[in-house]
């Protein structure tokens, strides 16, 4: 057993996990670790603010499928990661956060830069651990990686007091850790599969909703095969985008509050609804009374606590989505008789799809049209992330993808400012692919300082800002539901984002036509230059379709306000 300091053990434990990047911001309570990092090949990406570093780790994790690591100091360093942890946790993204802490002897004394980060993050992490002795460090780090990346993935935090970083111990590096209270199961129960298959094969109008779990388990091929076999239309939640190719004839696109017409009209028609890796968020279901009122619901989820949490299911499969879908498909293939399908339902898809595609305003730079221009300019193999707001909904509705790994967004927490740092993390995970952030002026302004890293650390990204000068989604609600009483929505006119980009060493472009947008994106990609493209859009434009809050899926507003 090697005798070494806690900081040495920390570095060795991370190296053993195959960590490539550590995103973070430095500080007093982690200096011993920073010193030790000098000897490591792991790349430290020093950020400008801990929230951004956490989103980078999150972006890296979502794209690579492996835990993203964020390392910060105690006190304000630690509190600044809370938004990032909540974002990752709600979207089941494996993020490992490592926080420095004041020495154990000072814990609890309100020492300089001391906060109770274990208490603060208990509600926004899957698990958190405070190291009490140097010797615990290898086990704590191994545990964090194991727990964050198994079962339903999530954020795990390890808090490391400064004296445990400098104290020496005989360190043991476990290859495996076990917990009496943690047994992530992924193998679905065959009996449950059998029941699901029977229900689906007898259904007249089977419909599928794919959520983030379908994407996370890489179930696209299995899902498409099952949908085709059943002739079942497939809608997706925001996190489920990419579970099925957007242009597949059975694809209904986004479902819910800003769902596409084909999804929101067809989902309530289902007699059997297969929900895969989705937690029935209020944004996906609308009012529960209008959500598939006549459907018998089959729910697949790797997290047992999601079953019957918001919506009761008649059959449930706890386990990995890919294995579950494969099992159902094999079972149906064995059954001879299939129920009579309602073919009229399938025939409506194309017509409703055209209806959604035509929902543009007359303004020359309409939101959906800008999204389509971005799609035209981006090569097929590329990654798009979004910020949060109107632009995000337009992107979710109109940015066509072929499968998982192409579109990432902050779904559950809806964190404005996620996009730019997440794009940098995505680029770190896949330096070979172009990465673009579809942003808004409000979101971009929250974390634009991360552009400095994109430029200086060599992670060229492209940002397109749909700039309407207001907090657009709130403006939309005030327009539609508050009798146009606009309040708190105005944003400062400054800075000029194109000029701002230049001060960061990036390229700044003001684009006022589709052609200019497309040209600027293509140049950013071919020149490998971080580029910010500021696109003025109409502040009065609404995102349609929209289900008013509290209403059912079929209560669709298509425009007019």
């Amino acid at each position: 057993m090697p005798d070494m300091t806690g900081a040495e053990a920390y570095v060795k434990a991370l190296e053993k996990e195959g960590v490539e990047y550590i995103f973070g911001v430095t500080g007093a309570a982690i200096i011993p670790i920073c010193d030790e990092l000098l000897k490591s090949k792991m790349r430290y990406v020093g950020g400008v603010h801990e929230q951004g570093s956490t989103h980078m780790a999150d972006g890296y994790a979502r794209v690579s499928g492996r835990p993203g690591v964020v390392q910060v100091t105690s006190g304000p360093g630690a509190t600044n990661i809370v938004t990032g942890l909540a974002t990752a946790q709600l979207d089941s993204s494996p993020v490992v956060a490592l926080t420095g802490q004041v020495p154990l002897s000072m814990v609890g004394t309100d020492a300089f830069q001391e906060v109770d980060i274990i208490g603060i993050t208990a509600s926004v992490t899957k698990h958190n651990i405070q190291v009490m002795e140097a010797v615990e460090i290898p086990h704590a780090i191994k545990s964090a990686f194991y727990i964050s990346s198994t079962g339903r993935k999530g954020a795990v935090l390890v808090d490391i007091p400064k004296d445990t970083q400098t104290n020496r111990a005989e360190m043991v590096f476990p290859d495996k850790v076990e917990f009496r209270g943690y047994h992530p199961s992924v193998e679905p129960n065959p009996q449950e599969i059998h029941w699901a298959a029977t229900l689906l094969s007898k259904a007249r109008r089977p419909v599928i909703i794919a959520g983030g779990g379908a994407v996370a388990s890489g179930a696209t091929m299995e899902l498409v095969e099952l949908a085709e076999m059943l002739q079942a239309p497939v809608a997706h939640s925001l996190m489920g985008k990419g579970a099925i190719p957007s242009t597949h004839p059975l694809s209904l696109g986004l479902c819910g509050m800003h769902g596409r017409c084909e999804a929101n009209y067809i989902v309530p028609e289902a007699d059997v609804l297969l929900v895969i890796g989705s937690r029935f968020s209020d944004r996906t279901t609308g009012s529960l009374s209008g959500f598939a009122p006549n459907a018998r619901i089959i729910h697949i989820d790797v997290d047992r606590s999601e079953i019957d949490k918001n919506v009761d299911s008649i059959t449930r499969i706890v386990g990995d989505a890919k294995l579950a879908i494969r099992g159902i498909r094999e079972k149906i293939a064995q059954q001879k008789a299939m129920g009579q399908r309602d073919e009229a339902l399938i025939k409506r898809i194309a017509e409703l799809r055209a209806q959604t595609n035509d929902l543009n305003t007359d303004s020359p730079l309409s939101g959906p049209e800008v999204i389509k221009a971005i799609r035209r300019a981006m090569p097929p193999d590329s990654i798009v992330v979004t910020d949060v707001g109107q632009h995000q909904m337009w992107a979710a509705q109109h940015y066509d993808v072929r499968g998982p790994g192409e579109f990432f967004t902050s779904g559950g927490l809806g964190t404005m400012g996620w996009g730019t740092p997440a794009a940098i993390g995505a680029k770190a995970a896949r330096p070979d692919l172009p990465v673009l952030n579809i942003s808004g002026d409000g979101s971009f302004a929250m974390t634009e300082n991360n552009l400095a890293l994109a430029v200086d650390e060599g992670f060229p990204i492209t940002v397109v800002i749909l700039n309407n000068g207001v907090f657009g989604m709130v403006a939309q609600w005030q327009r539609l539901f508050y009798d146009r009483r606009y309040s708190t929505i105005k944003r400062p006119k400054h800075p000029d984002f194109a000029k701002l980009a230049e001060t960061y060493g990036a390229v700044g472009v003001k684009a006022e036509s589709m052609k200019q947008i497309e040209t600027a994106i293509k140049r950013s990609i071919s020149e490998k230059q971080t580029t910010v493209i500021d696109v003025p859009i109409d502040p009065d434009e609404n995102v349609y379709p929209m289900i008013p809050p509290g209403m059912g899926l079929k209560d669709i507003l298509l425009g007019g306000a």
Partner: protein
Amino acid sequence: MPLHTVSFLVENRPGVLFKVSNLFRRRGYNIQSLTVGPVEGSPLSRMTVVVDAESRVLNQIVEQLDKMVDVVKVKRLDPIRTLSRELLLIKLKTSDPMARIEAVNTVNTYHGLILDVEPDILIAEVTGPTDEIDEFLKKIGPIGIEEMSRTGVAAIERGNIKLA
């Protein structure tokens, strides 16, 4: 709403009680009582909560507890098979001799013990199921309760089933 008893084994580590109570607070579960104690010959502690919940919420309580890494085993106890006891310590004002006699009789009726006697004060211990303790308190109330402390419920199921 109906009361249910949920027992669970947790790792006996610092911070676990916080995480459990934080879960109840954050998800808005209504706790009637919560007791904790170490399990003999084991690194685990047993917690017992009595909750006020409809079946969907009760199911969520069990699942959300089970999801916690520090929670090893959770069980909703079957009300028909469950033996549950609470302990009550109560301080009574008994300056009036008649009141004192009545207090002693009431404590005896509930198989309680008189723990301490001073000129004007009497301290008693009563154990029993929650409803019995409630009933005792209703009877003893008019005499004049100075102070009381209830432990919350310890519970175990009859027969050859165990939480382990």
